[in-house]
């Protein structure tokens, strides 16, 4: 019982930090995620300096300029949802701003000095869950001549910023089948990768407050049942048996699938990345793609800020950044990034089983394995753009909607808020397969906020298709040229 603590809120010890450094997590943001330091009630006030001092003394040749603090999140002190709900908001106007403001410095201080490898058969752009899961699956099928490029730390993008919901309740057969397979793979993940992902199948409970959404839930449940997904349509009264604290004002009907659930997103990335490294695949963090060398309708080289990589195939799996990377190759994607904000409260003993979502307003919330209420809410006025700032407007809108649905949490305190970007396509479906006119650029983007839960299954099928060339409708049906052909089937089960 003798431990030296750096973060007493989360019981993180000096040895835990050293262990993270040994694993290769040598920047503050990564150590925060891997050890959990700074994620408790003090939000890093008492521990950040202590952790940075450990990094300064333990990481070989670390430069002072490479020791950057993690992003300080609002609120500075835990603040009750009911107080946040009083902030004035003009819903008729679009949100603007968001903090932290542009920081004037970024990941370049953390970029390794050594050049990247000069060639690889497959270059995967984007070290989020899509890219890492694909690299892992390629390696498992014998293709190990692969490199993954990531512009930030692992978990810096949407894969590290989502609420961890995984569900089979979708509006199209293709998505239902992918989600089912993903959840099966998630159940095996710890066994295969040696890292816990804390899948908790507490279900998803959708509430509908308008006839249109109620009809959508009812039609959805029939489709789910045909795919073996046990979605039930519940009356508001019956749904109160699932979450007794909910108020059911204006709720017409509910849909509940007890096999949906929540996971802890970060260990997926670490698990896949560690698997890649074990198989000799490099995951190059803090490395930017700056251009492409193209000749004869083919990408010959991927140019990075650490040198060029000659390659045979390039996979674009950069999520919300995919359009801007594609632009460098002269390819126009119809995807648009849309900020989605999210927050987390103080941790409470378990009381909330399912993830609850009001599909009409885009409100969703669940209780994490750590006990926090984690939730968000789409903003219909949110303009397109790569913005990851946090606003009081969001906290107000979320806090109002949540405390109306679940009044008992009015005095529960918000610990931190953050944001990530959905990668939105015109039909809410992904973009996969070959790029017209540039066939060795493979698309793997456009997952509209649900890429995380689809990735294990999509990556498996994509690797199979890439290595064995087996025909697969995913890569002929969800191609980029469908938008020209106008052959669109819209996914309507999008939260937010």
């Amino acid at each position, binding site marked *: 019982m003798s431990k030296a603590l750096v973060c*007493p809120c989360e019981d993180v010890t000096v040895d835990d930090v050293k262990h993270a450094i040994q694993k290769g997590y040598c920047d503050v943001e990564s150590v925060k995620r891997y050890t959990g330091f700074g994620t408790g009630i003090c939000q890093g006030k008492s521990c950040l300096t202590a952790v940075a001092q450990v990094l300064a003394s333990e990481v070989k040749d670390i430069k002072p300029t490479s020791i950057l603090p993690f992003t300080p999140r609002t609120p500075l002190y835990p603040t009750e949802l009911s107080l946040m709900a009083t*902030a004035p908001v003009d819903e008729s106007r679009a949100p603007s701003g*968001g903090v932290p*403001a542009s920081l004037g410095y970024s990941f370049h201080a953390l970029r390794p000095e050594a050049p990247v490898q000069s060639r690889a058969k497959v270059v995967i752009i984007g070290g989020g869950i899509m890219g890492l899961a694909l690299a892992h699956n390629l390696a498992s099928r014998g293709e190990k001549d692969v490199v993954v490029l990531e512009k930030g730390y692992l978990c810096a993008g949407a894969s590290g910023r989502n609420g961890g919901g995984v569900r089979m309740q979708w509006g199209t057969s293709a998505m239902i089948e992918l989600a089912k397979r993903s959840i099966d793979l998630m159940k095996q993940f*710890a066994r295969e990768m040696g890292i816990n992902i804390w899948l908790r199948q507490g279900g998803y409970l959708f509430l509908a407050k308008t006839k249109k959404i109620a009809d959508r839930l009812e039609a959805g449940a029939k489709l789910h049942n045909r795919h073996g997904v046990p979605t039930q349509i519940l009356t508001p009264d019956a749904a109160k048996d699932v979450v007794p604290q909910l108020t059911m004002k204006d709720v017409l009907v509910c849909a509940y699938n007890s096999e949906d659930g929540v996971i802890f997103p970060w260990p997926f990335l670490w698990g896949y990345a560690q698997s890649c490294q074990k198989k000799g695949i490099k995951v190059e963090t803090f490395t930017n793609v700056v251009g492409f060398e193209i000749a004869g309708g083919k990408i010959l080289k991927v140019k990075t800020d650490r040198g060029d990589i000659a390659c045979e195939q390039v996979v674009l799996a950069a999520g919300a950044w995919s359009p801007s990377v594609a632009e460098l190759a002269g390819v126009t994607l119809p995807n648009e990034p849309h900020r989605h904000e999210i927050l987390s409260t103080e941790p*409470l003993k378990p009381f909330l089983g399912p993830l609850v979502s009001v599909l009409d307003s885009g409100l969703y919330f669940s209780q994490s394995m750590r006990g926090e209420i984690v939730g968000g809410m789409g903003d219909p006025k949110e303009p397109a753009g790569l913005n990851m700032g946090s606003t009081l407007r969001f906290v107000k809108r979320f806090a109002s909607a949540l405390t109306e649905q679940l009044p008992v949490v009015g005095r529960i305190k918000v610990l931190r808020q953050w944001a990530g970007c959905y990668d939105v396509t015109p039909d809410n479906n992904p973009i996969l397969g070959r790029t017209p006119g540039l066939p060795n650029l493979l698309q793997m983007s456009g997952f509209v906020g649900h890429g995380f839960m689809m990735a294990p299954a999509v990556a498996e099928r994509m690797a199979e298709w890439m290595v064995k060339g087996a025909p697969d409708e995913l890569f002929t049906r969800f191609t980029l040229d469908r938008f020209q052909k106008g052959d669109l089937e819209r996914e309507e089960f999008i939260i937010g």
Partner: protein
Amino acid sequence: MRRIEQRGQAITVELDGDPVPAFDGEPVALSLLAAGETVFARSIKYHRPRGPYCFAAACSHCLMRVDGVPNIYTCRIPARAGMRLERQNAYPSVKVDVFQSIDWLFPRGLDHHAMFAGVPVAEQVMAKVARHLAGLGLLPDKPAPDRMPCETLRVKVAVAGGGASGSSAAARLAAQGVPFLLLERDPFLGGRRFSAPDLPRDQVRLRTPVIGLYEDDAGWYLAAVSAADASEPRLLKVYAERFLLAVGGHPPTLPFENNELPGVFSGRAATSMLRRHGLLIAEEPALVGRGPELAELQRLLESHGAKIAAVVDVDGDAKDLKAHGRNKVNGLSFARRGRRKKVDCDAILVSVPISPSFELARQGGARVSWSPPHRTFVVEAAADGRTHAAFPLYVSGELTAPHAPEESAKSGELAADAIAREARP
């Protein structure tokens, strides 16, 4: 532990159903300490005993359920007659908690990433157990009361923090006729100076912690929760043309074995308990740390009759510090020149340079960097406190480095002068 002086009216609060004497208005955590209560809570993972450390809302050691609301900083709330305090996260009680066995079973810590990963049955059991052990506190007893509407203000200059630096800056602004509003989280001004200049009352909001520096269509603003004059709290938005952040710093954790045992306090907590509330926290404390505040703390305690068990400079030749005691500190040991030495003590006071509270500054776009000489993150600013932010955002006092109170005051005045020069028509 000794009350040197009693301030306020004698009252009684309730701790897990038992009466505890207190004085009206003092931080209720201090009332409990003075009454001999040391264990306030159990920690989240290993269920280690916890008691107050920082008295500055910068750790989580003193959280309790207060009047039916979980996770309240007892160091921040004033004692009131009949207040109901309950300890959290323990079974059957905080003093005898069966889950402390986790701490004993995993003396080197447990790796929640790898533990039972992929082991059939064990991993499901672990997930269920972890779910039930996770979290601090139960849902509140009832929904929130109706809240007062948010108040929105527009001012020329907003000053966040009324400690040594912020209160001096505000006095300077007042002297030059520059309108300002000062927001201070404590019920008093002056911070570590324990005295403050007279400021126009309507330009100061006490009990008003700033929770964020945000931007929207109408410009930059400080968001705060104001409970000025001990009224019900309300949200406050303060738009300003210029901002001065003088919010000081947080007492950091100093890692050594058992460094969070009840009875380990930050040096500044010990100082303010003594000077602000008349409580000498220990009769025979051991002092550990580094920097000029360590010697000052020793002088202060000795002048009130404390016997100092040891002073350990962590930059010196003492290594491998360890706090001893079961539910409260009763000793400190360390290695020096190959020999292990142990002293008896009734508290360990940790005095290390403060960690600048850079959060608001960075939210506004100021640069924050690691300072090797200070071994902390600091806000980068010009001599007059102007930061790299794209709008007039100034910092002063301990945001740029740990400072003595007089230096902090001086830097506040410099920033105020710069702001006044700009603000003049």
